[in-house]
């Protein structure tokens, strides 16, 4: 449980990692506002990779629902100061 106040104003560092045959992004690290929903990360990925659908995971483990706040995901699952997001073209961890 984060001891600092997990306010919306924080920026969160997101590290985007390709899985399987998904294309690797040139720029893989981004800062996103903590008050944004995870759907923003998904949308960003879809735009960058020109895909309609992607499978997106946290720590190669689970897909959070798109309404979850980035700050909550970071507080609960982030480590080393970043949130690791894996993306794949097909279901990687079913």
């Amino acid at each position, binding site marked *: 449980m984060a001891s600092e106040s997990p306010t919306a104003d924080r920026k969160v560092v997101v590290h985007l990692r390709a899985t399987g045959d998904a294309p690797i992004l040139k720029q893989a690290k981004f800062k996103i506002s903590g*008050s944004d929903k995870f759907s923003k990360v998904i949308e960003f990925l879809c735009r960058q990779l020109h895909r309609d659908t992607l499978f997106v995971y946290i720590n190669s483990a689970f897909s*959070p629902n798109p309404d979850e*706040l980035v700050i909550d995901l970071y507080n*609960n699952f982030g480590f080393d100061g970043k949130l690791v997001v894996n993306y794949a073209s097909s279901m990687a961890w079913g």
Partner: protein
Amino acid sequence: MEVFSEEATKYVWGGAIPLQIHLHESEVTTLPPPPPALVLGSRIGYLPLLVPLIKPYFSSTLPPGEDTVWFDYNGLPLKWYVPIGVLFDLLCAEPERPWNLTVHFRGYPGDVLTPCDSEDTVKWSYINSLKEAAYVINGNCKNIMNMAQVDQFDLWQSLVKGNMDGYLRISSRLKLGPVGEDCFLKQASSLQPRQAIDEPDTVGCSRPSRIPVRLYIRNVGESLEYLEDAPIIDSWDRISYINRAVEIHKEGGNYMTLKHAMRTLLPEIFGDEDPDKKYELRGEGNHEACSSFGDQETISTARNDLVEETSFGSQRPSEANLIRIQGIEPDLNIPFSWVVNNLRNPDYFLHLCVFLRTSSHQAKAT
């Protein structure tokens, strides 16, 4: 203290919302229009799972086209991944029975709702929530990932069919609880392989429990006297959806209370002041009425954002922030471990609805 009550779990699994489901007028092609469908929506279930029950009522009147089913309450499209009981507790400040919903088979609002094509979409969402919960509890979700396909299928089917025994049988193998009296996660005793001394995991397979919580926060306003007058939610922007975890621990021999857990989860709302101290000042008894008026005024003027206890059977609307879990507004002195073990959903999340009465210094709505 009985940490896990099968009786309480039966109530939770048996809980259902009586729904009166109207077909949206734009989709009625016959005269007279079909009467609404009366369906029981399991509290722990999800709206899309009701479609096979509902569709027969309306299939003969629908316009041609493909089905993209969604529901709305007072015009607000309902998020399908939120358990039915939570939607009801959150959106119906004053419980409405039956709960009047509108069903649509066309015109899916893709700007508000993520797509939901079939039962599989709901299952995927459930399994991922389960993984997320497991990750919070264990630091990884290997136990879910290593489930046999048939077990995952059976677990899901137990939920769909409201089969509590089937669910408990499979879920008990996942080692996600219940929280024991010592506030440690109860593990089935098993032979542990000898572990290296420097291994972070304790050899005694017990550790303080981290509880995953989903909070749905709604501001009903300071001056609200009766819940039925709460402003209608016309947009999900009015609800804060917050996902946090709380570690259960004992406080010098005392059980951690729900009140304390709320303070840990939402310090920006429930304040830093030790609520136990305040409780001592007021006197003994869980069932004592919510303090004298004098006390309340003092506390209210001093700190608007403190939680006050609600007493059982209190007719007077509480001036405090309201917490609703599985349709219950619990006494805040209940041990949090009891709440966790008995009121959490099959996805191992505790879903809490919070009705904020304070206007100042509240959690930022997104």
